[in-house]
């Protein structure tokens, strides 16, 4: 696998060693897991404020320690495996979701690159890159990994001897097979414009300020990608997989404790990944100088907030409405968008 830093940074930045990649991987694991936990708190608070409630208030100042309480609960709860379930598949399904979510994060830029100061023993002077594995085909890799992550819900639903689970798994397959098409087609138009699949190239293409952001050239693709991203991360209005009012908890019905927590962490990590892709591909990404990295964190935070906002604002849609929206509305628009982009580029 290539670990060279592509493009302009090649000359100025030090060489990426395996130690740096390892440190980066540990940072991603630790920080994103923590953010995923914190995300649940933010989500509850934001939803509460939008519904004129207070949300969690009792544990710690302003309910902040609710997070720790939930974590302790998840870790110490009994891990129940239903009697008639296919035990092996049932046990690995949540791991698939969590693992693929983090593997996807390996190929996106998370946090700026830095060199560990030399006064720290053992690790001093190690260069930690911003992308753990800077693949030339980063975008495809991330989308493919997120797609593979949907095997988690599918296997979980099929392995538990529970009809709600089966319905959840069936809905996973339906949602995946339809929205994967829209995700791919919507992001194809920006890829055609930039002529590369690397996140670094996308970032360089839009380095000329707000005016050069791809969202102005590809507003349709942006909206399509955002809608498909909601479906990909199972967020409302497309959370058919675990819609409480219809299928109890869908694929997660029989899960408890840490295995349920892994689904949760995977979902939040995927939300962050989709936010990063949207920020880098359509909203200019990061810049290396000055406060550049703050901007991408703000953009990612905005998309995260947008997901909560949408959840508070819109009801769920039915599965047949989802299919109608995907195949009869979004996919034709995406194809037309690609054709028009191609014509404009050729002329």
């Amino acid at each position, binding site marked *: 696998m290539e670990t060279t830093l592509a493009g302009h940074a090649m000359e100025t930045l030090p060489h990426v060693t395996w130690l740096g990649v390892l440190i980066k991987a540990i940072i991603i694991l630790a920080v994103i897991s923590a953010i995923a936990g914190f995300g649940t708190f933010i989500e509850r608070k934001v939803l509460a404020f939008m519904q004129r409630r207070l949300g969690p208030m009792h544990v710690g100042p302003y309910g902040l320690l609710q997070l720790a309480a939930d974590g302790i609960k998840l870790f110490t709860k009994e891990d129940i495996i239903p009697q*008639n379930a296919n035990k092996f598949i049932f046990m690995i399904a949540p791991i698939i979701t969590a693992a693929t979510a983090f593997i996807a994060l390996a190929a996106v830029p998370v946090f700026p690159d830095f060199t560990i100061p030399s006064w720290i023993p053992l690790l001093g002077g190690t260069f930690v890159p911003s992308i753990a594995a800077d693949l030339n085909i980063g975008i495809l890799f991330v989308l493919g990994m997120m797609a593979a992550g949907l095997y988690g819900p599918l296997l979980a639903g099929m392995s538990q001897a529970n009809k709600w689970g*089966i319905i959840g798994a069936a809905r996973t397959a339906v949602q995946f097979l339809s929205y994967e098409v829209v995700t791919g087609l919507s992001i194809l138009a920006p890829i055609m414009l930039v002529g590369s*699949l690397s996140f670094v190239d996308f970032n360089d293409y839009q380095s000329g300020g707000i005016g050069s952001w791809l969202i102005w050239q590809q507003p349709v693709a942006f909206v399509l990608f955002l809608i498909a991203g909601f479906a990909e991360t199972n967020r409302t209005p497309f959370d058919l997989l675990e819609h409480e009012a219809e299928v109890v908890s869908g694929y997660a019905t029989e899960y408890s404790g840490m295995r349920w927590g892994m689904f949760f962490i995977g979902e939040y990590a995927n939300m962050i990944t989709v936010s990063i892709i949207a920020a880098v591909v359509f909203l200019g990404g990061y810049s290396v100088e000055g406060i550049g990295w703050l901007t991408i964190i703000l953009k990612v935070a905005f998309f995260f907030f947008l997901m909560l906002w949408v959840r508070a604002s819109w009801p769920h849609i039915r599965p047949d409405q989802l299919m109608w929206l995907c195949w009869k509305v979004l996919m034709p628009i995406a194809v037309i968008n690609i054709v028009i982009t191609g014509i404009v580029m050729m002329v």
Partner: protein
Amino acid sequence: MYEMVAFYLFSVLTIGLFLITVMSKNVLYAMTSLAAGMVLISGFFFILGADFLGVVQLIAYVGAIMALYSFAMMFFDATRDIKEKNTNPALVFLLGGLSAVVLVLMFAAPIHSDAIQALYPMHEGVGNAQDVGIVLFTKYLVPFEVAALMLLVAMIAGIILAGKKMDQSLTEDMSADDEILTQKDEK
């Protein structure tokens, strides 16, 4: 060194997983090992430096096997206990022996490393996707177009097969409900 370790790891895992696919009678095990094996095959492409093909393998087969799962879901009860009875020990013997021979051959192959030459080496400075595109639209243009035509034919056939009642909505049209009810009455 890393590549060698990764290659042997991937090959052992892939062969083992595909063996499970062939041997197991439990649909969930068979499908899951098929999916995992297909994902692991993309690892070979990554080792070879063909990142683009690796990711295409990943995306294409993840989607394809997901479609297969939906059929499995409709036809089988995935959680029913199935006795894994290997009715044909000769087949198991043959397949197991064959995979053992393949493994030995793979481990022994680097002895003759001089005989292995890359016929189509990668171009320096050209991305993977561009390389694939150039080969696909020059050397393999005819097979590419034929494959596209076949997919088109398959798609039209699928639409015709599935499209007999496409003008009726299953949820809004009440006649579908009536049909279900009459079928229930007949029972």
